[in-house]
């Protein structure tokens, strides 16, 4: 099993209102190639900071120590080329005045040395791959003409356009309602398998994450609380906090059904 990503003793501090806020403390984490790691946490747990730190997108002035290493990559990771990133709010992550086809195509053009014509062709293929009906028409549409779930499919197409080896989904389904949410989770699962990407799935919902994850890491107050194989962690969590999350998410009704 090769290691895709290795995080060592990572700490991140923001400055807010003249006060330092420690968003992450002493985080050690490895990601294996082709596997899915879910990062679970509530607001303030530092899970989104972790995603932004890996993609080098932390705001200017953020203090940062520890290491993020990419064994076997041979160069610093390029956003879009090596890392695909899907954000929480699909309405906010697409430029409102550009056709969505162009927003997928520009990723392909930037990283794959394609002409615009080739990039648009690839974009249309990708829109089909994320199961958008009539990809040619969708490529010409603007974000406001699509539903929330459709927009998130477009954002996913843009994220995988340059075939990155790591896909980060930061609360990628929590702005959607439950039915669409299940569809998007299934879509991400299929794409990750087909392209043999590693997946970092960040969520507040442990039940949702359990559907995809090989391993689950639980974060609280900026610290990694525990990490383990999905089945193991769900069956016998080491921390009472993890247990409360599991109970709150799955609920008695679901157990009864299973």
């Amino acid at each position, binding site marked *: 099993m090769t290691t895709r990503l290795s995080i060592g003793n990572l700490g991140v501090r923001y400055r807010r209102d003249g006060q330092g806020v420690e968003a992450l403390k002493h985080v050690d984490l490895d990601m294996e190639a082709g596997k899915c790691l879910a990062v679970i946490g509530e607001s303030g747990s530092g899970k989104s900071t972790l995603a932004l730190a890996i993609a080098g997108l932390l705001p200017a002035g953020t203090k940062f120590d520890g290491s993020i290493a990419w064994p076997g990559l041979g160069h610093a990771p390029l956003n879009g080329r090596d890392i695909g990133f899907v954000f929480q709010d699909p309405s906010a992550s697409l430029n409102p005045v550009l056709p969505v086809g162009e927003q997928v195509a520009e990723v392909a053009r*930037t990283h794959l040395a394609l002409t615009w014509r080739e990039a648009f062709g690839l974009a249309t293929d990708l829109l089909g791959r994320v199961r958008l009906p009539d990809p040619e028409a969708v490529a010409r549409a603007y974000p*406001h003409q699509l539903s929330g779930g459709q927009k998130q499919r477009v954002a996913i197409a843009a994220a995988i356009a340059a075939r990155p080896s790591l896909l980060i989904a930061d609360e990628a389904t929590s702005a959607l309602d439950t039915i669409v949410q299940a569809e998007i989770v299934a879509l991400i699962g299929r794409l990750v398998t087909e392209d043999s990407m590693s997946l970092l799935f960040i969520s507040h919902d442990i039940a949702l994450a359990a559907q995809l994850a090989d391993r689950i890491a639980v974060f609280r107050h900026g610290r990694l609380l525990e990490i383990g194989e999905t089945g193991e962690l769900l069956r016998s969590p080491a921390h009472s906090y993890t247990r409360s999350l599991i109970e709150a998410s799955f609920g008695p009704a679901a157990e009864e059904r299973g």
Partner: protein
Amino acid sequence: MNRALRLIRRRLIGSIAVLLIVITGTFLLLEAAPGDAVDAYVVSVGGDASMIEELRRRWGLDQSAATRFAVYISSLARLDLGHSVAFSRPNLDVILERLPDTLLLMGSATALSFCLGTFLGIVAGSRPGSFRDRFLSIGSLALYAVPGFWLGLVLIVIFSVQLRWLQLGGIETIASGKTGAPRALDIARHLVLPVASLGFIYLALYLRMMRVGMAEVWRMDFVLAARARGIGRRRIVLRHVARNALLPLVTMLGLQSAAMLGGSVVIESVFSVPGLGRLAQEAVAARDTPLLLGIILVSAVLVIAVNLAVDLLYAGLDPRVGSSGEAA
């Protein structure tokens, strides 16, 4: 282009209402001013007391205010803006004669201020907080505080009195006999200073709006998303940030057309450009209220037309305009 047609139809209906209100306003000012249309006509054309009586009756000016208003509207509908005392000619003729110079001045000043302002705004806004951003920001604020007519005088002192580079007065050399390209060049030389004086304050405005707008767009999630997709900085600045920040400037372009027409009054009198603004000042000096109100009406129509054009431009730039959105 169904969307554009719908937009035009809606705006035209609104414009008619607006125009009626403007007409009501000018009518009220006309009533408040001393003298009436017959006085004006008689002063310029001549006539005796019986003729004055006759004209008053014929033009319905001896009737109630409501009738006089109806008469006013119906004459406006026939494109009759009354008679100018000062020029002894129909107001509309005088106004249309002066309109082209003002359009040329305004068009040039708008083009200069919008293009240069947007460009410098992008230069400043592409790196928020950098030295060039702060420099352009403070510079534009200083420029924004300079009254155009005074800037005009200072430019005259520098370029005409001290350096003797540019000629002054009018829009072209009178009776030079030039045609074609030489004439265009002559007009351009005359226009440099007035256009600068009129346009610089708006240049500062557009620069500031662009800069502030870009600062706002930089903070939006889709810019972070574009960075996360590895899009090049140049493309992010131009295609994502500037493209979105441009939209409010286009709206401003329409709103500022009225202000610029007002500003051209002073600029045209500083540089003796024989345009609509200068005519307005002459009308005030000659106490020719009907002429002044005619200028106001023509300006209002002009502003409405410009705004209509700007709305269409905006609809072309922002795909969200006029669409019914997704079903809720």
